[in-house]
């Protein structure tokens, strides 16, 4: 069985996997980082979005072995102790979630946008969320959260 080595949330980890083991399985089942969710397992919903080498990716559509040597960040890697990341804080402040199932993927996807565009317009946020599905909120408060979170990050409150 292949051994895979990667950096997850700043920590070097390694584990035995099968070639076919998905990144999301490695994160959830081997590392027990269950913040990353599986909604569809068919590359559509974005609940599984994490960052691989700084850009957002669907961890249900990557093999763990494709991440050999990579830096992976999951939702668990954002908060600084008890202090939430500004994007997390913005979701809380703006009621950007209901059941919360889509939220980790929404936040990881939103961070990729905020890293490229510190003041996205409403339309830019909506276009960006093409790959993130929410069954609860109707998106309005998610869009508000992301715009506020991006502003907070640009204002230097972390990120």
């Amino acid at each position, binding site marked *: 069985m*292949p051994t895979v080595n990667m950096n997850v949330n700043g920590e070097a980890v390694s584990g035995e996997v*099968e*070639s*076919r083991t*998905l990144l999301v399985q490695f994160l959830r089942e081997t590392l027990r980082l269950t913040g990353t969710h599986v909604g569809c*397992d*068919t*590359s*559509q919903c*974005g609940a599984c*979005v994490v960052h691989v080498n700084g*850009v*957002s*990716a*669907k961890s249900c*559509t*990557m*093999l763990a*072995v*494709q991440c*050999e040597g990579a830096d992976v960040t999951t939702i668990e890697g954002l908060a600084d102790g008890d202090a939430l990341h500004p994007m997390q804080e913005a979701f809380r402040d703006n009621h950007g979630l209901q059941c919360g199932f889509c939220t980790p993927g929404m936040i990881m*996807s939103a961070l*990729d*946008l905020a890293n490229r565009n510190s003041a996205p317009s409403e339309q830019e946020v909506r276009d*960006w969320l*093409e*790959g*993130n599905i929410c069954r609860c909120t109707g998106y309005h408060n998610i869009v508000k959260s992301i715009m506020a979170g991006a502003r907070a990050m640009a204002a230097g409150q972390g990120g």
Partner: protein
Amino acid sequence: MHDFTYHAAGSVADAAAKVAGGEDAVLMAGGMTLLPTLKQRLAQPSDVVDLAAVAELRGIQVSGGAVTVGAMTVHDAVANSSEVAAAIPALADVAGHIGDPQVRNRGTIGGSIANNDPAADYPAALVGLGATVCTDRREIAADDFFTGMFETALDEGEIVTAVRFPAPETAAYVKFPNPASRYAIVGVFVARTAGGVRVAVTGAAGCVYRETAMEAALEGNFSAAALEGMTASADDLNEDIHASAEYRAHLVGVMARRAVAACG
């Protein structure tokens, strides 16, 4: 997903050797189509040869009026390349409207054209611009590359290395996207090139094709008005829950007129 043996290739030659060495080996680019296919057990390769670490396959070069995009260049890189935007803005536009941001972060031009999904966007850009597909063995004109539904002129184990696009005088792509996946229900790429007008249609039929009647009409008068009343023939067009063949035929005319108008 059935298990397989995973290999990371270090170079094109290494990838070719590894594919030839496997009993039933496949190449992997970003895995954006391959992994969903394997999950559905529609294929059961013995070996998967990952091209991700092959540096020579990645990158964009603009020179002598042509844009060359390495096979492993992701859609996001083409969409956000200032060089592509300057030389062939329509190409950046095509890449920027494929799927969603996460698909664009990992999906590649080589994987997209080797797969030749009948609803994929890049095939329309390649045929519309009269591009050339470079492989580890030869060069293939786009007109000869896309041979049928999910079929290409690639031989067993042949590796796409790059695509070379000649810059047109003007070009635009307009698609009517499937609202869920963003694949084209119908997409039309129109270009006025040194060699004449080209109108390439994706999504409508089993494989990208050229609307030669529209090309002839635009040759004399390059304006949306020249296509007034023109549609595609509905014979042999795709029919599914998203659109009937007749509706697709109608959309070909509408998208073509919008694309010509967008050429400015």
